[in-house]
């Protein structure tokens, strides 16, 4: 497989001229210098400083960082590829997010802020009490990060790098991951958010250059695309192996509804109720309940900054349709033989997979259309997208692991230990990702990529339902939430298992999966799963005793402004942790007094590493009982300046109006 790819690359244009390499080197220098600059600006030695950037971020790094951690290389390959294959409807995935980010900023984040949490499992632990729900959520989040987000990004990054550079994929991936890990480990969230801002600029600027280039050289604007896309068919349509398959007409003809966002609810490839509601549900899992996104919002200076950041991200999310989906369609118009290939043998020759080559739409455009210099810029764009989203996932998974799993294993762990564990976990997850490369490579010839995508839509809706009910319905209690999650998981697995077993199939070789099981569109299934889970949660909750209000102040939406004292449901566990940490502190103090000279002999190397990673050897003493009580009285503030509140509200409505116009325009 690798050999054949290597041969392919030899015949294609690769990036090896000085202009391209200069651009890429310049890009890396820029990112590294911004990373180092932000390293010195922030305190990285505490949990709040490392994981939440000290809660001092202004709205523009928040918005840019939301966008950059969302847009991965998967978008460039996946959106452009699906756009080439079936038209603009896939843009609905992006444009749905415009409404969901408002949901995030206006409804969810105020509650998370007043709850005073760092991670999402921590919120569920405070809201419901008990350990099992938060444990389940941490485990399934880490699972989804490793098996869906990281793999998708690395798969598509690999497609691009192979097309562009012809490098050995292991060298490329390891080099990329090391650079990413370097600034994740050293800088913490603040460095990440500032570099994300730079990455956003690079992504948007580069993608704009490509789109402008498409219009000037190849396409001739939207109207020309409208005219030429329906005729973008490959010449090679004859079956080379008539005993095995026939090439039916609908497999190579572009869809007649390619220029519609909203498609037939029964026969459409993305039916409109699914596009409107199903994507909204999966999207609200991604935007409102996932650690990666929420962590960025919690790092903001105030609630107004969160809202402004969400609006900025929303406006930026308008762009992928024009910067990725439409260029993908142009690519099919320009290269119907390669991008629109239909005969398996031809496809295998073009891109190494039999099922179709729409995934190479964007890389193909870059490599064939752009002059040298700009090709390097586009590679930098891909690297920016890949690195920013991988870095966010690394940081958030390390937050999850440290704050939820490690503190459960070792309640006596103090700040310094948590900092070290967080950084070590980043290294662990980087090595897991590297071990995952062979699987990703195998996926290029198989269908694993599709399975991975379906995993999200079958596992995410129950989590979204739990968070919606936890935030908005006071009556929901622990057994309801837990059994709802389990029921939802069971239903999701019931659908996922047959899909894995039968395969998703392609146009030429349809899947043998019976219609009863796989006939329901996966977006419809997401809606059904969401509703069933919610019903289950409500039924079980109403059959079991409610949680008294005194445990819920500032944990649910209706009580977010409450000033009453809250008796945390996880109080006992917190107390045990504090006691263990205090004991550990005493022990280390007595040890220090006994062997004073031993403590001084810290080697120069470990001090250097400590400085580089921002881990200080001195740590703040553990809070006493009284200080803990004072901290509890010092409630998080979500009050807003009325003027700015109205400004962001008005901007939110304007953004929704723009979004509705766009939906209407491309309906």
């Amino acid at each position, binding site marked *: 497989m690798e050999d054949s790819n290597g041969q392919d690359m030899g015949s294609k244009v690769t990036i090896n001229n000085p202009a391209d390499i200069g651009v890429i080197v310049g890009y890396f220098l820029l990112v590294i210098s911004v990373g180092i600059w932000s390293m010195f600006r922030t305190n990285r030695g505490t949990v709040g400083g490392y994981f939440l950037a000290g809660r001092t971020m202004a709205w523009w790094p928040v918005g840019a960082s939301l966008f950059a951690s969302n847009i991965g290389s998967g978008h460039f390959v996946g959106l452009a590829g699906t756009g080439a294959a079936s038209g603009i409807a896939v843009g609905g995935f992006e444009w749905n997010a415009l409404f969901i980010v408002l949901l995030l900023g206006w409804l969810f984040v105020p509650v998370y802020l007043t709850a005073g949490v760092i991670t999402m499992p921590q919120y569920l632990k405070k809201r419901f009490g008990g350990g099992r729900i938060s444990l389940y959520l941490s485990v399934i989040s880490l699972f989804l990060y490793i098996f869906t987000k990281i793999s998708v990004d690395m798969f598509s990054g690999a497609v691009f790098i192979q097309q562009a550079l012809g490098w050995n994929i292991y060298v490329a991936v390891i080099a990329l991951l090391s650079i990413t890990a370097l600034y994740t480990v050293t800088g913490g969230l603040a460095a990440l958010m500032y570099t994300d801002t730079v990455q956003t600029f690079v992504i948007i600027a580069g993608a704009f250059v490509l789109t402008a280039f498409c219009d000037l050289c190849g396409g001739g604007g939207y109207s020309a695309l409208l005219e030429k896309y*329906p005729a973008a068919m490959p010449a090679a349509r004859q079956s080379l192996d008539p005993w095995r398959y026939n090439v039916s007409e609908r497999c190579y003809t572009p869809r*007649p*509804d390619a220029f519609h966002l*909203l*498609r037939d*609810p029964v026969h459409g490839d993305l039916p409109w109720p699914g596009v409107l509601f199903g994507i909204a549900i999966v999207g609200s899992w991604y935007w409102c309940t996932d650690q990666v996104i929420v962590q960025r919002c919690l790092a903001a200076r105030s609630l107004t900054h969160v809202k402004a950041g969400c609006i900025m991200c929303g406006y930026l999310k308008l762009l992928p349709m024009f910067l990725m989906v439409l260029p993908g369609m142009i690519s099919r118009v320009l290269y119907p033989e390669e991008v629109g290939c239909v005969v398996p043998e031809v496809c295998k020759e073009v891109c190494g997979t039999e099922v179709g080559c729409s995934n190479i739409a964007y890389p193909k455009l870059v490599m064939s259309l752009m002059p040298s210099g700009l090709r390097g810029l586009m590679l930098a764009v891909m690297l920016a997208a890949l690195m920013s989203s991988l870095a966010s996932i690394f940081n958030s998974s390390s937050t999850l692991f440290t704050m939820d799993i490690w503190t459960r294993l070792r309640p006596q762990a103090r700040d310094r230990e948590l900092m070290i564990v967080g950084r070590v976990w980043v290294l662990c997850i980087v090595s897991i990702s590297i071990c995952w490369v062979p699987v990703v490579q195998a996926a290029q010839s198989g269908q694993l990529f599709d399975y991975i995508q379906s995993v999200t839509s079958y596992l995410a809706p129950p989590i979204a339902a739990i968070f919606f009910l936890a935030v908005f319905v006071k009556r929901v209690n622990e057994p309801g939430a837990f059994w709802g999650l389990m029921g939802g998981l069971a239903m999701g697995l019931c659908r996922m298992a047959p899909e894995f077993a039968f395969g998703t199939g392609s146009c030429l070789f349809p899947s043998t999966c019976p219609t009863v099981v796989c006939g329901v569109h996966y977006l419809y299934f997401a809606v059904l799963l969401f509703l069933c889970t919610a019903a289950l949660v409500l039924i079980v909750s109403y059959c079991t005793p409610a949680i008294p209000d005194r445990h819920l102040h500032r944990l649910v939406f209706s009580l977010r402004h409450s000033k009453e004292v809250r008796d945390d449901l996880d109080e006992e566990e917190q107390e045990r942790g504090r006691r263990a940490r205090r004991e550990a502190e005493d022990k280390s103090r007595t040890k220090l007094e006994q062997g004073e000279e031993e403590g001084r002999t810290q080697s120069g190397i470990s001090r250097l590493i400590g400085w580089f990673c921002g881990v200080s050897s001195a740590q703040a003493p553990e809070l006493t009982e009284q200080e803990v009580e004072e901290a509890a009285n010092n409630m998080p503030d979500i009050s807003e300046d009325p003027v700015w509140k109205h400004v962001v509200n008005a901007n939110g409505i304007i953004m*929704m109006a723009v979004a509705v*116009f766009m939906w209407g*325009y491309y*309906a």
Partner: protein
Amino acid sequence: MSKAAAGFLWVLFTLDTVSAQQGTSTRALPNWLTGIIAVVVFLFLVFIAFLVNRAWCSKPSQESKAEWVKTSDYPMANGTQYDTSLDAVRTSDHENAYENVAIKHTVDTVTVM
């Protein structure tokens, strides 16, 4: 009137989506018109939501004017030196034994005399 207008816009809106599902690239309405109609409908809905919010969720304006006389302040209102407190005559069994809860929540203004 506005209902009829909204109904008409809704018909236009659905007409277009229905014809958009036919799978043909010819459209009943040009793109920009569907966009504008969608925005108008959306803004109209926002306006309705705003009115509903104003009508149902805002507090009556008199409420802020009426200030309750606190029971513990009451004996001091006449400027007497006596340490008279209502708590002295209350039963200890029921905290609010002498407080008429029904009166407390009427809109009648109580003035400090």
